[in-house]
């Protein structure tokens, strides 16, 4: 697995002299986050499948909850990061902000997809249906489509200022969906379970540890995606300078 390295932006001459130093520098952030998230996820898996007792009402499928909830939070939070980065980009066209936005979109999309899949896997034994048109699920699906639209549009538009601005607009328009997803169980009647307050202590511990691990994993993937965006931009520039 190739870990992404971080480099300092600067003019070409400085870059040349620092090149050798960059190759020798370790990707500290990537390594640290990678190791921590790996350890964290392993601990989480043990906690979820071994440590936590079986739910009395739902049985084994209840264990999906411990993964599903943190991933959903990351999926929603990543959209917020994407939108905020987009708005910042509208006022200050720094390409690094744009890289953050695109990286966040990719990571958030993956996590939201996993959330929906885990949700469906939970829904089939509990509700008897893979999918229901519940407000929370519908809103989550809408967010998923917003991610798809964002990634597709940015991909078609290419790497330029206009692309970043258009992405910001999509983020702004879809951002209202995030609180709707979160608050829908409180506002409307539906099948999705409401937030639980009286979890047993083992379940609370498992949920919190899994939340931390999944967040570390998301940060690790964000760093990789960010560096990937940076490298893709540099590659495009190199190609343009050669042609």
């Amino acid at each position, binding site marked *: 697995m190739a870990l992404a390295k971080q480099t300092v932006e600067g003019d070409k001459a400085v870059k040349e002299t620092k090149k050798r130093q960059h190759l020798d520098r370790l990707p500290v952030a990537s390594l640290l986050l990678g190791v921590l998230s790996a350890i964290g996820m392993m601990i989480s898996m043990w906690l979820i499948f071994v440590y936590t007792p079986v739910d009395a009402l739902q049985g084994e499928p209840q264990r999906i909850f411990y993964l599903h909830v943190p991933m959903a939070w990351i999926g929603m939070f990543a959209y917020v990061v994407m939108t905020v980065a987009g708005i910042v980009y509208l006022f200050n066209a720094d390409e690094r902000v744009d890289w953050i936005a695109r990286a966040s979109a990719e990571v958030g999309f993956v996590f939201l997809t996993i959330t929906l899949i885990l949700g469906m896997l939970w829904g089939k034994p509990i509700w008897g249906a893979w999918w229901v048109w519940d407000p929370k699920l519908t809103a989550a699906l809408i967010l998923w489509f917003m991610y798809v639209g964002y990634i597709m549009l940015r991909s078609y538009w290419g790497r330029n200022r206009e692309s970043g601005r*258009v992405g*910001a607009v999509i983020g702004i328009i879809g951002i209202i969906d995030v609180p709707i997803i979160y608050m829908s169980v409180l506002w409307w009647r539906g099948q999705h379970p409401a937030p639980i307050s009286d979890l047993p202590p083992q379940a609370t511990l498992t949920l919190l540890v899994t939340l931390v691990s999944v967040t570390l994993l998301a940060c690790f993937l964000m760093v990789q995606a960010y560096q990937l965006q940076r490298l893709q931009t540099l590659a495009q520039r190199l190609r343009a300078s050669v042609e």
Partner: protein
Amino acid sequence: MRDTAIFWQQVWAILWKDIRYELRSTQTWLSMGMFALLVLVIFNFTFDLRVNNVKAVAPGVLWIAFIFASLLGLGRTIAAERERSILDRLLLTPVDRKVIYLAKLVGNMLCIGVVEIVALPIFVLLFNFDIAIIGDLIPIVLLGTVGLASIGTLFSVMAAATRARELLLPVLVFPLVVPVIISAVQATSLVLSPAINEPPWLGLLIAFDIIFLSVSTLTFQFVVEE
């Protein structure tokens, strides 16, 4: 006050240009009207529309016809513009970008409105409703059109700049107009078969219209500016 007057004069100028263009070509409205009619008729065959089923299915059928006809209209008007660089020339004029957006919005609403004028009587006839409900349906249809058109206009300009514009427009528009569609369909269904203790669908429709209209108007400039 003078600035407001100038603003709306500019909107009218661009809108009138679009209307004259449409009147001279008569391609878009005609095909959109035919498309809406066809969708309504096809649904007649696809569902088992006996009397007791009709009222449950009818609102959805009507709004599907409107959605697809409006997507068609949105895609075609903006593709035609891009081919002739009309949008670029409009951007050269010293008008606020909101003016361009509002003119395009009203133009699209008129387009969809023509389709709705054609489709509503046919809907009532095909589904055997009382003619009087058209009057009750008009506010809902208008509000739904505002929601559809505001999002659709913004995204049709966005998608028009890309290669896959016809594919991308539905992907972008559908998820966002879902709340508008849900509210509109439920409100229509309340008109066709009144019920009590229902959520305030019309209020929800108005709320979403306000949100989408304001956000689209304010963000349009970022979409078209280079």
